[in-house]
Structures are given as structure tokens and as C-alpha cells.
């Protein structure tokens, strides 16, 4: 194969990699994962091979609890880190974990990460 063809293939692959990393689903989830029960706001996130939904908008000024669901979760998303809360825990492989977020002000964003850093989710308070 000549050099020009190889350079073109290289560039094509570089674009493909860029698309894999930066493209994809960063949109708001259509699933209703915020619920207010007895004055407490519950935000539910599924953890398995990443977090879903990736972006959530919740109400500010309401006591909020985060519920993380795990189901056969052995990958990194089970190793949850929420830096702003100083929260670090390896979630059970199956089950629900409740995390108290307290009352958040409008404009605050809470970010959760897995310990290796390649999965994340955001909750925005409005």
C-alpha cells in the first residue's frame, strides 16, 4: 500500500475515534427519573456500564435524595465517587443505594463519577 492511502486511512480512523469519544448521547433523558414524595425529592440513576440518565434536572430548594440502582453491576460504575459530598463507595452488585444530597441551591450542579473517571453523570438544580 502506498503512503498516501495509509495516511488517509489514519485520518479516517482518527476521526472515528474522535466521534466515539465526543459524539453520542449527551441529551437529556426522556425517562422521568425525578419524583417528589412527601416533600422529599428522589432522583433515580441506574448504574451499569455507565450511568443513566447522564443528565438530570431537579428542583432546587427541596431536600433531595439520590437513589442509585445497581443490577449485576461489576464494572467501574459500581465504584461511585461524588467529590462535592466526599462520597466514595463501592455499591453492592445488586440493590438500591440511597444518598442524601441535602438541599441544593438553584444553579448548583452535582457530578458523580466512577473511580476510574470514564463514566459520569450530572444533576442540575434549577
Amino acid at each position: 500500500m502506498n503512503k498516501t492511502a495509509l495516511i488517509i486511512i489514519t485520518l479516517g480512523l482518527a476521526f472515528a475515534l474522535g466521534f466515539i469519544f465526543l459524539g453520542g448521547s449527551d441529551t437529556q433523558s426522556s425517562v422521568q427519573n425525578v419524583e417528589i414524595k412527601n416533600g422529599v425529592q428522589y432522583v433515580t440513576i441506574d448504574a451499569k456500564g455507565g450511568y443513566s440518565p447522564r443528565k438530570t434536572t431537579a428542583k432546587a430548594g427541596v431536600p433531595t435524595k439520590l437513589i442509585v440502582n445497581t443490577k449485576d453491576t461489576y464494572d467501574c460504575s459500581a465504584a461511585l465517587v461524588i467529590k462535592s459530598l466526599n462520597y466514595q463507595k463501592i455499591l453492592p452488585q445488586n440493590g438500591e443505594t440511597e444518598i442524601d444530597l441535602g438541599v441544593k441551591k438553584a444553579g448548583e450542579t452535582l457530578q458523580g463519577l466512577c473511580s476510574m473517571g470514564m463514566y459520569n453523570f450530572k444533576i442540575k438544580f434549577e
Partner: protein
Amino acid sequence: MNKYTFHVSGTHCASCKILIEDILKEQDFVKNAQVDLKRETVKIETDTDINPEELAQLLTNKVKSNGYTLSVNKSVVRQDLTTAQNGVIWQALPIGLLFLALFFILQKSGILNIGIGGQITPIASFFIGLIASVSTCLAIVGGLVLSLSAKISQDNISDTKTFILFHAGRLVSFALLGGLLGALGGAIGINFTLTAILGLIASLVMLLLGLNLIGVFAKSKITLHPGIFNFFRKIEHKTLTPLIVGFGTFFLPCGFTQSMQVAALSSGSFFSGLLIMVAFALGTLPMLALLSFGSASFAHGRHASLFFKSAGVVVLGLGIFAFLAGLAGLRIINPLFSI
């Protein structure tokens, strides 16, 4: 006392300088040896009276097994090799990128998110190990194994022994530490910040070795401080080093490993903790063994140079990924991506 200057070929790495000098100085008739990597020459001080051609041949015999040749005249073959090397990088780049693309597509596809269901038995943890060895954990543990293996094969160190020691060290330390977790029921290690820092160190090693394998260092002959290379060469040769690196992989950030550690922790006894971790490590063994022994067989084959450069591209890509993810994990930067 006679002084000679010989041309030396085969110096692909900065640590070659130390290796050649050490071997030459071991000969009792050689008083001093000094390698100049830039000029590809070696200066010898000796008290024998034999002619330079014979001396060059004699010394070549000592270093030949390490891939070096000494000659009185600059060898022309070397020149042809370097022009050929330039073309190789353009073959290596697409190959390396293709592997990276396939790897990350595999991660994104969700195929790896299969359920095992229920309690973690040693059999389940074996399968989890199989999955883990092709998951994002491969970016760190596998990337490290690939970069170290390729480097070790390139440096012509007795690679098979080193790899066996590494894998044995990994299995034994997973067994012992798993057993300890089960027996103590808590409290050793699994500190997130510590594992994240270890992950960063691993990714830096990968970046450095990746560049080295591609030949960036060799081309411009950037000589890092000789002391550093001396240090690396010394530890490369130690029997203990691969064992310790194998041991260290227990603490590298990998979600699967951490899940299994928790499972071992809650298993309640030394023996069951040991079984879970050993089964997990055995599950990861086929892929990791393929990486290390695969690089050894490629390294001694005809396409060695293409292999080293392709491996360098893969390692560099995984290193960048692990480095950025590691920084995000420590909250030093905002996560740039989510696979």
C-alpha cells in the same frame, strides 16, 4: 594503554548506552568504555595490543546476544534501516488506531454489560475476570502489560521468564490479598484516591513507553538523565520487579477488580476470599498472557519493528485515555468524555 573509537549499531534505546558500557567494562582487558549515542560510537581504552579489527570482532561477540555490533567503519546497512523505519510508522499508525477504535466501540456497544446474577461464586468471578480483561480495565492493566512486555522484548531481556514471574506474582498476590480481605472483612487498601494516583502513574509509564516504542526518543536521541535509565535497567533485570508489578496490579483502578475485592471482603473467610480473587485473576489471565507472550513472539519475528510501533500507538492511545480519565477521577479536570 590504547584508545580506539568504534562504530556501534543497534542502539535503539538510551538504556543501551549503560548496557553496552557495563558488558564491555566486564572484560578485564577493557579499562574504560564510553558510548556516544548521538554519534553511535563507543570509545574504548584498553591495554591489549591486538589490532582494531580483531578487537571490534572480539567485543561484538560479547554484545551480539543483546543485538549490538561494533565495527571499525560505519556500517552502511544501518542507514538503509532508518529510511525503512520512516515508512513503518505510517503502517503502524492505522493498525494501532484500528485496534483502539475496535476496543472503544466494544466498550460503547454494551456487549460487555452482561448479567451474571445472584451471588458471586468463584465460577462467576472467573467469568467476570474474562469480561474485565476486555473491558475498560484493559486500558490500564492491559496497556501497562503490553507496554512493559513490548519494551522488555525490545530490550532483549529474558522475556519469557519475566512474563511468567509477572503472571505468577499477579495470581499469588490476588490469592493472598483476596484471602486477607476475606479474613479481615475490611480495611486493607481499597482507597479511591490511592488507586486513582496509581492509575495516573501507570498511565504516565504507558505514555513514556508508548513514545519510546514508536521511536520518538530514539530518533531525536533525547537522553533522559542516565541515572534514570541506569535505575530502570537495574530494576528490569531484577527477579523481584515483575513479581512486584504483578502484585501492584491488585491496586490499579479497575471497577471489576474493586467489585471483586468487595465480594472477597464480604465473603467472610480467608479461603472463600482467596478463591474469588484467584478465579478472577485466572479469568483475566488469557487476555493478559496473550498480550505479553504475543509481544514476545512478534518481537522476535520478521515484523518486529512494525509490531513495536503499532503497539506504541495502541499504548499511547490507552495511556492518554487512562491519564485523562484518571485526572477526571481525582477531580483535577472535568471529565472530557464518557464512554
